[in-house]
């Protein structure tokens, strides 16, 4: 076979391969050598990045790439995967403009995450679980990357679904990476189960699509014979049920898949808990891979979703309505919840949910390009934000360590001490003077001064701290809370109420995070997030004001999306500014923040032996550099990635863009009918700027003033304690799910799946029957006790007895199991034979 693998048609095959190979190499061979393992992982992503970037360059350099006029010009190749009856099922890769921009964003973000991970994981002490399972982490991360890249280059829904599921598995493995923690285990199970619900429905949708269309390849469905398949599927008279066209039903199912994967309401609850994984995983899940994949999938199949309708004329199809409503609700709800979080990562988690809501809502009103644009820019700044938060948490953990061990690390570190001294002088603290006892004293002082009632909860959840700074929640947590994850529990190093003043400790992180936050809140004109968010709002607004073209249809969905997104943007600006100010502004509010640093735990003798200053630097700052270097790169993209998608007619800037919206023209060619460029209006821009100004300005007013540790959060003062607690409890969704679905599924999982399927034998099922009978017996017994006290112990006893009898079948003797199997098989065989006779 003569294949030039460097040809852009074949190269996409190879893009996902290096990380997958890396996964196998690390798992099978290099697991014991940490340096080897992370080198392989990073190297594999570099390879993927180079190949993907080559394809991207080739794509941007090709004239009329995508669908123009009547020709479809894309890269791709396929193989016959299997013969299905008379037709063939083809499997392949394809690169169209949408894929091309994903191939730009995904590998860059991944590469940065990988490099960052080397520093992040390496900074833990040797006996930490992070360090013990170091190699395994990189193996999982590689598999994750491989899954995502597979999904991106796939040219059909099945291959895409495979990548999708690989990522589902990896997210489970990585969220539960610190499986010593019960909360991590539960978060992993929660994420896996929640996305599974959606995935099953999505798979049903894929199956239905195959049954109706006879193919799962995107370009055959969307373009072949002038989109004949789409036309047929979109016609409710020809196909479908219940008055919905087949395309609508399939679209609804696929959108549900995305709702799970991209954590949209009501399946959003897993994402904030996914913070239990190490921070690079959060960055991976939130930016480069998992949740982006969900949005990418709906963008990918958008022609199917709008088949039979036209959002630009307010003819909404069912999937579009679902997306618009869910997206709006999610964007707004998550933005509000983001205000009440004190866990730095959880703030970001809610902002991710909210921003994904923006994209989904944008797609709901047909803003295809705007959704794709926001997906790209969001990935950059969200990866940046998460990795920054990881650096912050690391610095805080280091500070906690320093407090516990009597600042031993400072003695051998003159530079650091000097730096600290400087910082402390500025804030009126002596070096090392701030201890947990001081914090207690401050709280007592606060009670005396009447700022705080005794027993009242301070922002970090308690009115006192123990001698080593342990909060009551800590103790409770360690003894494993039976009801699972407490929604309002915040781990100490993550708690922004305990931070403050960190910009002096970790300046690079602080300003990188500032860039990311500015992009997230849409700081006007100079950030990427502004341009992409503005485009969504402009899309929504333009069609409302231009209602002439709706021909009598009411653009209610546009209005809903517009209103909720603008409010959500305001809240976003507020909570992001709040988070940044609480973290980096003011002065340290706890001993941990006082001693926060990103420097290595380095042996003083080793440091003294280091010959060159470069080596000295590396010994002290290797992890710091590895963590913060990627932040700088991503900060660049968080600011400048937006300039490719500026509206062509934007005042002043049109001189530079030459009245072209490059992103729009490039990605728009992924559709059969290129979406029309909306005329430029100044109002949407002003609305965006206004939303930003109100939110960020208000937060600045409230949070830039110095605060003391006992003071309540300003928001708490404004909205009152019950609302604040409701925010911290995430509106009770988690508790509700825990009490209903999760308990139910857990029961099912433990009783049925674990016992029956895990044991792979018939006795598991019998055991289940026994248990069910026992439970029924138990229930009846209780019923009897309550209603007719003392009556009817007989039935439960009988049932309990039969339960015990069933137990005897579980003997552990393999031949007995074999006999049961044989009897069952023979019963089936006899059934068929007797039917013939």
């Amino acid at each position, binding site marked *: 076979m003569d294949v030039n693998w460097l040809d852009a048609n074949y190269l996409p095959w190879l893009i996902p391969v290096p990380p997958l190979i890396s996964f196998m190499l690390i798992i099978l061979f290099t697991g014991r050598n940490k340096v080897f393992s992370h080198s392989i992982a990073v190297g594999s992503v570099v390879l993927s990045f180079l190949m993907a970037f080559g394809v991207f360059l080739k794509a941007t350099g090709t004239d009329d790439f995508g669908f123009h006029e009547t020709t479809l010009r894309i890269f791709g190749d396929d193989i016959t995967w299997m013969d299905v009856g008379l037709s063939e099922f083809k499997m392949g890769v394809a690169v169209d403009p949408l894929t091309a921009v994903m191939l730009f964003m995904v590998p860059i973000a991944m590469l940065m995450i990988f490099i960052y991970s080397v520093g992040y994981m390496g900074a833990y002490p040797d006996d930490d679980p992070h360090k013990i399972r170091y190699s395994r982490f990189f193996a999982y991360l590689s598999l994750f990357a491989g899954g995502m890249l597979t999904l991106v280059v796939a040219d059909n829904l099945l291959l895409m679904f495979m990548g999708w599921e690989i990522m589902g598995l990896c997210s489970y493995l990585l969220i539960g990476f610190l499986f010593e923690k019960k909360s991590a285990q539960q978060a992993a199970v929660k994420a896996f189960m929640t996305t599974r619900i959606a995935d099953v429905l999505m798979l049903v949708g894929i199956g239905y699509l195959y049954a109706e269309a006879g193919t799962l390849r995107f370009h055959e469905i969307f373009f072949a014979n002038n989109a004949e398949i789409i036309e047929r599927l979109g016609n409710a008279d020809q196909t479908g049920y219940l008055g919905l066209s087949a395309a609508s039903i399939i679209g609804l199912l696929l959108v549900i898949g995305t709702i799970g994967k991209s954590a949209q309401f009501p399946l959003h609850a897993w994402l904030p808990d996914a913070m239990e994984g190490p921070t690079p995983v959060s960055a991976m899940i939130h930016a480069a891979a998992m949740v982006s994949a969900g949005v990418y999938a709906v963008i990918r199949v958008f022609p199917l979703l709008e088949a039979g309708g036209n959002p630009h004329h307010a003819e909404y199809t069912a999937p579009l309505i679902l997306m618009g409503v869910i997206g709006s609700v999610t964007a707004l709800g998550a933005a509000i919840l983001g205000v009440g979080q004190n866990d730095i990562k959880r703030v970001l988690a809610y902002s991710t949910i909210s921003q994904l809501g923006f994209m989904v809502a944008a797609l709901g009103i047909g803003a295809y390009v705007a959704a794709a644009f926001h997906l790209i820019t969001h990935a950059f700044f969200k990866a940046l934000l998460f990795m920054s938060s990881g650096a912050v948490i690391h610095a805080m953990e280091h500070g906690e360590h320093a407090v516990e061990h009597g600042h031993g690390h400072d003695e051998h570190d003159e530079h650091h001490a000097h730096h600290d001294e400087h910082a402390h002088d500025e804030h009126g603290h002596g070096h090392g003077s701030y201890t947990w006892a001081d914090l207690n004293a401050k709280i007592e002082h606060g009670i005396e001064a009447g700022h705080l009632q005794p027993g009242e909860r301070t922002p970090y959840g308690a009115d006192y701290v123990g001698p080593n700074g342990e909060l009551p929640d800590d103790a409770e947590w360690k003894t494993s809370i039976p009801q699972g994850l407490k929604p309002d529990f915040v781990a100490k190093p993550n708690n922004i109420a305990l931070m403050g003043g960190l910009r002096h400790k970790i300046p690079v992180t602080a300003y990188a995070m500032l860039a990311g936050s500015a992009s997230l809140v849409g700081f006007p004109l100079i950030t990427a997030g502004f341009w992409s968010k503005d485009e969504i709002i402009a899309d929504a607004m333009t069609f409302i004001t231009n209602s002439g073209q709706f021909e009598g249809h009411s653009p209610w969905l546009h209005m809903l999306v517009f209103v909720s997104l603008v409010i959500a943007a305001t809240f976003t600006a507020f909570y992001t500014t709040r988070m940044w100010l609480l973290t980096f502004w003011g002065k340290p509010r706890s001993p941990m923040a006082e001693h926060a640093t990103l420097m290595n735990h380095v042996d003083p003798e080793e440091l003294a032996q280091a010959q060159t200053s470069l080596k000295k630097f590396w010994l002290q700052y290797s992890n710091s550099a590895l963590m913060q270097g990627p932040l700088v790169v991503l900060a660049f993209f968080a600011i400048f990635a937006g300039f490719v998608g500026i509206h062509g007619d934007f005042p002043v800037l049109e001189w530079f863009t030459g009245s072209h919206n490059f992103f729009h023209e490039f990605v728009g060619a992924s559709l059969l009918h290129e979406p029309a460029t909306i005329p430029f209006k100044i109002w949407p821009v002003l609305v965006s700027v206004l939303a930003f100004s109100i939110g960020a300005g208000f937060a600045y007013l409230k949070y830039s003033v110095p605060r003391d540790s006992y003071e309540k959060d300003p928001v708490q003062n404004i909205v009152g304690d019950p609302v604040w607690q409701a925010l911290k409890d995430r509106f009770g969704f988690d508790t509700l799910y825990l009490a209903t679905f999760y308990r139910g599924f857990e029961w099912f999982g433990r009783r049925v799946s674990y016992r029956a399927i895990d044991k792979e034998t018939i006795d598991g099922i019998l055991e289940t029957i026994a248990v069910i009978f026992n439970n029924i017996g138990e229930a009846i017994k209780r019923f009897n006790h309550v209603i007719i006290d003392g009556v009817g112990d007989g039935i439960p006893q009988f049932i309990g007895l039969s339960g015990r009898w069933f137990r005897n079948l*579980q*003997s*552990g003797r393999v031949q007995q199991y074999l006999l049961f199997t*044989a009897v069952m098989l023979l019963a089936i065989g006899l059934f068929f034979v007797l039917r013939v006779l």
Partner: protein
Amino acid sequence: MVPLWFYLVVSAALFAIGAYGALARRNAIAIVMSVELMLNAANINLVAFWRYLNPFEINGQIFAAFVFIVAAAEAAVGLALIIAIYRSRQTVIVEDVNMLKW
């Protein structure tokens, strides 16, 4: 010539005998032998069908040859497991090795 169904009946009988042995013998080695009998029964079936239905194609014989391979691998691993169990538990009676529960 002997009709096809003779072979099939012999094969079926041998398979049933093997199944009985696998279900009823206590000694693990006897169970392995019974499994070998069942594999043989399958092989007789394969070769007989090849001979009567499609004798000019080579596939049937190759198929049977692969069954040999599987049988050899199965016997080697199976007996190794038995020896390992014997070494650790001093028994090859499968009822005594009742760990497959809970």
